[in-house]
Each structure stands twice: as structure tokens, then as C-alpha cells.
């Protein structure tokens, strides 16, 4: 099983006094998958990743990386694992090249391997021209690219990322996402577990998703299957004139409608059902006499599923 699942979490629990941050979590990450770990604030995502990266200890349960228990032998478990936890800070007196050398020496790479990989990675993270400048002068986005770069050193088979775009400006976010996308497309033997708040980011980058709340796993599967399983869709209804409370109320009362809310000049309808039920819904809207000029399904099905699951787990 270990070869198939480079990251295995079983019965993981972390308590801070009375507060349970991670509650009997079981999660096995498929080899060569790009898995997004989703959940609201305080869901236990960061705590789980911090346990996996040996920054904190679990109260009970186990976490294995490449078959090695992180609590029993963290040094061996973290071999071949690259990490970017939160927005790390660097030794500001070092340059990216010196930072890579430091990390490379720690993991036991030869001087030649460090030198050749450094150039290659700096190119990948678009930091070549900044290679010999002190990190103290870098923006947050640039530092995050260096953080991603150091995680790629020594050709890791597993990468753990904790909100890699958090706190970055839109340009910084786009740059980091592009690096991750290239990584996904160009690297074959690589398993990535990435926590994020941004559903579109997970939709865009990941092929699998695990949703947690209150420290518990709610669902874990291929993104497409997760969306299909919940059957929750978001439909935008555009009506002539401003959508008033009466119209919204009528739509809310239709079969399979979970909620209807005004969203600008549209009505955002959260709908649970398959294609047949959706067709019935369109018909029912017409029967109500509401002057609809557009009905469209949101392309981000993950958002509806996520909101539905989080609501149910409250």
C-alpha cells in the first residue's frame, strides 16, 4: 500500500488543551496525484501539514511519508520531500544561490549536484537574474518563488505546500500558480499535497481534492467525482429588471433548490440534482412567469460542492 500512497495519515489527532484541531483524520494521498486540501479557517489543514512536516507533534495517530513514520524517524521520513509551509522567511543575509547551497548541503547533495540543480531550478522559478542578490531585498512574491525552488531541490518525490499563494498580490499568485502548473505538467514522478483557501486554484491545479472541516475528512476523491457525488450545482439566473424579493422567494420554493440569493443583477441558485432535474427547474421558472433572459451553470462546481459539504458538517 505504501508505494501506492506516499502520504498516509491514520487516526491523526491533535489537541490544544480542550480544542481539537485534527480529529481522527484518515487520509491517503495517491502516488503522482496533485491533491488539494480544502477547508475553512480552523479546519485543521495547516495543523495536519505541520504534523507531516515535523513542525508539531500529533497527540495520537500516525502520519507516514514514503512509508516512514514521521514521529518515529522524521529525518528518514522527510528525505525526498520538499516543503513550503505557510510563507516561510529566509535567512535574509543569504542569496537564493547560497540558500539552495545550504539546503542542498543539509540534504547531503554533492557540490556539483547543488550547482547544476540550482541553475535549473532558478530558471524554473524565474529567479535566475536574482540568483546572487540578498533575499532581504526581495518582495514577498519573489521569496515565495525561492521557497518553491528550495522545495524542488534534490528531485523530491513528494511536495507538501501549505497555502502557497497566501498573502501574495494577484501577480505573485499568478506567478506561483504558473510554476506549480508547469511542475504538474513536466514532472512525472511527483506527488503533491497542497492546502488552499482558493477553490478555483485547487480546481485549476489539482486532479484530486480532500475537504476537511473541524479536523475531520469530509470527502476525498478525484475533483470530477467529488462534484458529481454531491450533485450540487450553482446556476445563475438573469431576469429582466432588478431581481426583487418576490422573484427570489418564488425561485427558492422550487423543487431541488437549496438556496437562492441575489448576486449583483443575477440570482445565484444553489441546486441539487442531475441534468433531468435541472431541465425541470428551467421549465418551472418559465411557468412562474419570471422574465428570464439567461440561465447558466457556474463552471466552478467545486465551489458548490465545497459550500454544501461545509454547511452539512457544521
Amino acid at each position, binding site marked *: 500500500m505504501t508505494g501506492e500512497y506516499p502520504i498516509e495519515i491514520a487516526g491523526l489527532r491533535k489537541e490544544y488543551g480542550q480544542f481539537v484541531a485534527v480529529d481522527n483524520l484518515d487520509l491517503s494521498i495517491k502516488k503522482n496525484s496533485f491533491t488539494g486540501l480544502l477547508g475553512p479557517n480552523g479546519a485543521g489543514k495547516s495543523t495536519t501539514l*505541520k504534523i507531516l*512536516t*515535523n*513542525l*508539531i*507533534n500529533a497527540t495520537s495517530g500516525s502520519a507516514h511519508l514514503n512509508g516512514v513514520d514521521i514521529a518515529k524517524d*522524521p*529525518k*528518514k*521520513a*522527510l*528525505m525526498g*520531500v520538499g*516543503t513550503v*509551509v*505557510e*510563507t*516561510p*522567511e*529566509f*535567512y535574509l*543575509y*543569504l542569496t537564493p544561490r547560497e*540558500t539552495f547551497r*545550504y*539546503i542542498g*548541503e*543539509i*540534504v*547531503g547533495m554533492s557540490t556539483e549536484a547543488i550547482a547544476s540543480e540550482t541553475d535549473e531550478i532558478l530558471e524554473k522559478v524565474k529567479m535566475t537574474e536574482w540568483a546572487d542578490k540578498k533575499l532581504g531585498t526581495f518582495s514577498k512574491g519573489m521569496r515565495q518563488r525561492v*521557497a518553491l525552488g*528550495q522545495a524542488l531541490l534534490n528531485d523530491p518525490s513528494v511536495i507538501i505546500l501549505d497555502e502557497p499563494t497566501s498573502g501574495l498580490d494577484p501577480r505573485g499568485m499568478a506567478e506561483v500558480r504558473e510554476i506549480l502548473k508547469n511542475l504538474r505538467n513536466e514532472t512525472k514522478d511527483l506527488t503533491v499535497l497542497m492546502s488552499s483557501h482558493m477553490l478555483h486554484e485547487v480546481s485549476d491545479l489539482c486532479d484530486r481534492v480532500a475537504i476537511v472541516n473541524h479536523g475531520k475528512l469530509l470527502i476525498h476523491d478525484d475533483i470530477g467525482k467529488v462534484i458529481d457525488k454531491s450533485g450540487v450545482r450553482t446556476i445563475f439566473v438573469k431576469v429582466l429588471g432588478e431581481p426583487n424579493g418576490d422573484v427570489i422567494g418564488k425561485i427558492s420554493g422550487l423543487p431541488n433548490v437549496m438556496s437562492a440569493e441575489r448576486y449583483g443583477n443575477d440570482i445565484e441558485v444553489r441546486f441539487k440534482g442531475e441534468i433531468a432535474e435541472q431541465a425541470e427547474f428551467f421549465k418551472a421558472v418559465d411557468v412562474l412567469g419570471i422574465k428570464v433572459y439567461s440561465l447558466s451553470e457556474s463552471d466552478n462546481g467545486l465551489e458548490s460542492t465545497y459550500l454544501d459539504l461545509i454547511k452539512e458538517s457544521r
Partner: protein
Amino acid sequence: MKEGVADDLRQSYVVMKNEMTKFFRGKRMLLFLGLVVTVLLLITVLPYALGDGLSKDPKEIIQTYISFVYLLVLLAATLFASVTIVSEYEERTALILFTRPIKKSSIFLGKFSASLIIGIAFVGLYYLLVALISLIVAGGVDSEMAKSLLLAVMYVIGTFGVAILISSIMKKASTSTIITFVILLMILPIISAVIIVSLTPESIDVFTNPDVVFYDAWWMLDQASNAIYGVLSTTVNVARESLVMVAWGLASTAVAFILFKRKEF
């Protein structure tokens, strides 16, 4: 990858090198060197500016310079050892270093040895400079200077141990720096003074009875450090004072390591 203790030590060496780079590229080193140069200049230049210059007796010359050693060691402990652990947490560099395949013991050893090497190298250099000044001005060096150097090195071990213990407890580097300085400069001497006064039988008559025999708190770090200067003029139990200072260093370093190992991010 090389297995076992050899690899752990290799990693400690890598951490130590980086820590030394941090010291040498940091402002604290500049501040420290500035203070040392100022002290050396004041001791050397002031006697010439105000009178006949430095004494021609090697013992007197060395006593003058060595009387400031404890203070400079204390400053070194405050500026270097007191921030070595806490800065990893405060500056969030732990998120890079601690998530790597490296044992916490290797990190601790690398960091502590880097500050210790800086401290011992500084003491060695200071004594070398003092010996040179003594040779130039008085034409010789006092033979007891070697014992004083040994005791100063032991004091480095003791104070740096206390400093790294504070560094393992605190959450902010600035707090750790201040607390280390205050503990070494004031709190320990105050505790010693209270112990001495409390345990000296004739303490009530201390101002009227010149023959009072004070309780010897030889096991206190600050009391043992008096030997660095004392060894130049009086009989000092070098072995005992050295052991006391090393014991303080080892005990506080051991506690610091336990706290560091248990510390979570």
C-alpha cells in the same frame, strides 16, 4: 545518503557554518567588535592621555585588561548565543530548516557550537592582543595569564549555556537578549549576594567587623567567574572554578536542548 551519527555531525557542521555566516554578516557582530575596540582603546589610550601611560609591570598591565573580560564575554553571550534558537521561530526560518531531513539535535549542536566558537575565538584573540600589548609595553607576559585564559574559556561555556537556555524559552529575540543580559549582569550577582549575606553567620556585623569571614558561594556562576581576574593576584582553585562554570554550561545547555526538542512551531 550517509547513515547514522556521521551524517548527523555533518549536518551539524553545515548548520554551524551557516550560523557563523549569519554572525559575520549581521549587525550584532559589528556592534560587538565596536564595543571591544572601544574598550581596548580606552584602556590603552586613556592612561597616556591622562598621565604616564600604562604600567611597566606585565602583571599590572594584564590585570587592567583582564578586569573587563567577564563583561565582554557576557556581551558576546547576549549578542550571539541568546538569539541563536529564538530567531529561527521569530523570523520563521524554522519553516525552511526544521522541515528538512535533519534531526533537531543536529540543528541544536550546529547552532550552539557556532556561538561557542565565536565566543572562544574572541576570548583567545583578546588575550593574544593583551599579551602583545604587554610584550610591547612591559617586555614580558605574566605567567598566570594562561590560567586566566582557561578560566575565561570556561566562563564562555557557562554563560553561553545560560544564554541558549533563555533563547530556547523565549519567543522574541529582543526579549531573549535583554533577559540574558540582565540575568548574567544583575540577577545572578544579586542572588549570590543574598546567599552570601544570608549564610554568613556574622553578616549583621559586616560593616563593623572587618574580620568577618564571608560564606563562599563558589558554586554560583558569577562567583566562579571572579577567578578570571583573581587568578592573576590571589590563590585560586582553577580546577574547581573551571568545573563550576562548565557544570553551569552543561546543565543549562542540556535543559535548553530538551526545551528546544519539545518546542513546536
